[in-house]
């Protein structure tokens, strides 16, 4: 008997990871599409069916205006996911540009970018979001721009460090010695090197963006109250807690947690797939 024979019958780890990534992304797309389809229904009021506890007909119950909480949650989540994806994309591109500038643009640019990273990280995130949202007059644009402008520093740091590491590597030195142009080195050697980190960082930005959107909306600086958004639903639920309507807060919150976990699962599985240091696990 061979003692170190590999265990058989187990599904390969990489395949599990790939399945997790695809499964999570499909679930999210389905959610967004479903939310968009039922968007109009979610705002319908039925005053003969208000304040109903959860039942088969209304799985999440209904609120004080007789709106179905399940549909409202779905519509709200799809708004949040869309907003989060757009804002995180903008933020990630900003992070990429600034990180690359800091690493390749010389000492002064590096100092400037590093200082602005420190400045952004020196103010608590929520306070900064409140300030930006206030500057833009709150509402959709307030929260979207706020999230896009505040989530780049940590990823920019990662990108900067990666590019610096790549710049010091032997093969870039060889390429330079062979007389390749700077653009060519940047495109053929550095870009592929940082791309995996960038994509993983981007996907791991989504959960943050969505949670912050919900938080800022909850505080009253985000999406307007007539829109179905998780933050709006939860801040409304807060006023009905003492009357015992627990379903208004519990289910939408759980749904939000589920969405964030899905994004997190997709991001960390993808990291295992593309990160050369970890993809043998």
């Amino acid at each position, binding site marked *: 008997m061979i003692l170190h024979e590999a265990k058989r019958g187990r599904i390969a780890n990489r395949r599990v990871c790939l399945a997790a990534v695809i499964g999570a992304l499909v679930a999210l797309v389905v959610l967004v599409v479903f939310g968009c389809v039922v968007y109009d229904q979610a705002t319908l009021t039925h005053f003969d069916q208000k304040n109903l506890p959860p039942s088969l007909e209304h799985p999440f119950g209904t609120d004080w205006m007789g709106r179905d909480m399940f549909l409202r949650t779905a519509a709200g989540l799809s708004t949040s996911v869309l907003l989060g994806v757009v804002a995180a994309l903008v933020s990630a591109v900003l992070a990429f540009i600034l990180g690359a500038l800091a690493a390749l643009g010389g000492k002064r640019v590096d100092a400037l970018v590093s*200082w602005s990273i*420190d*400045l952004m*990280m*020196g*103010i*608590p*995130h*929520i*306070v900064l979001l*409140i*300030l*930006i*949202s*206030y*500057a*833009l*007059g*709150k509402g959709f644009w307030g929260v979207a721009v706020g999230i896009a402008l505040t989530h780049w*520093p*940590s*990823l920019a*740091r*990662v990108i900067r460090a990666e590019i610096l590491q790549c710049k010091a590597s032997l093969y870039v030195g060889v390429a330079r010695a062979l007389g390749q142009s700077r653009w060519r080195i940047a495109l053929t050697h550095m870009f592929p090197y940082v791309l995996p980190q960038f994509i993983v*960082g981007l996907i*791991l*930005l989504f*959960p*943050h963006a969505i*949670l*912050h959107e*919900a*938080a800022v909306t*909850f*505080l*009253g*600086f985000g999406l307007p109250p007539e829109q179905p958004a998780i933050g709006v639903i*939860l801040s409304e*639920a*807060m006023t009905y*807690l*003492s009357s*015992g309507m*627990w379903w208004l*807060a*519990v289910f939408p*919150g759980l749904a*939000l*947690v589920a969405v*964030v*976990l899905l994004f*997190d699962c997709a*991001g*960390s599985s993808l*990291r295992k797939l593309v990160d050369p240091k*970890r993809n043998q696990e």
Partner: protein
Amino acid sequence: MSKVVFHTIAKFLLLMLGVSLVTFVLVSLSPIDPVQANVGQAAYLNMSEAKRAQLAHYWGSGIPLWERYGSWLGDLLRGDMGMSLRYNAPVVEVIATRAVNSLALMGSAWVISGVLGFVLGITAGLWQNSIFDRLVKGYCFVLASVPTFWLGLIILMVFAVYLGWFPVGFSVPLGMSAADVGLGDALHHMALPALTLSVVGVANIALHTREKTVDVLESDYIRFACSRGLSRKQALLHHGLRNIALPALTLQCASLAEIFGGSVLVEEVFSYPGLGQAAVTAGLGGDVALLAGIALVSAALVFAGNMIANLIYGFIDVRMSLSQPCLANEGEKASHQLKSSISRDGRPQDGEVS
């Protein structure tokens, strides 16, 4: 040493200048008219023209940004942060009274989450892959995805509304004069918000401590200690604890920004009169001076946390202060490395989850 001190002070002043400038520019960009935001639509429409002008003057609209910023900065150097228009009191006073509440809340959450997270992390790392370890890991991963304010709502609902063990909000009993409020009352009101903040804060520190414990247990010196006859637990307690505790303490110091962010949400949920709630009120009501004051105070708090983290690192790890003349930068890098080592574990970067 004096060079380091000078460097730190210069960095601090530059940061404060940056924060205040950003705050002022952002607030002056806002299309929200503070007069309308505070008076209300109906009252504003019925108001006489003279009254409107008087209010606009009171709220300082119409004065150009640079003039306002200049005079505010001049006052700040003399220790005057201006008047809070919402609370009708000097900003310094508003911040001081609320900072006491907030610091008590954040301080207790900081200590509880630090100690609890450390103990959980050590225990989980010591019995790696046991059921307890999996529970701790699962708890931390889920907690990273839970919005603080929702958790606050659930805790409020269970412990205050259904069980009735704790008050629903505020920092003191209603209808009681300030002189009669005892420490017990204050603690009773602070319990739920502090619990919420601690429960969320545990995740970061526990995961980090767990990783570190696993690393230390695989090290040569622990193996040597074990081969001398110590049990794994003894070896860890005698030789490993110090190596694990230091980075954990540094990480906890650097997490002040996250705790402050969490306290804004938690204070709003529990109607707890702290700095966070004042920031929200100031933001919703267009109270520029108070908003700027709170932004400055929170940035100073975060800076202090990072500085303490750096100092701890420099003092304890002699290699750090010997090899680099400027320890401030190195400590920052080290604490950043700590963070990124956590985020490499599949958690979102910078851990601040609301």
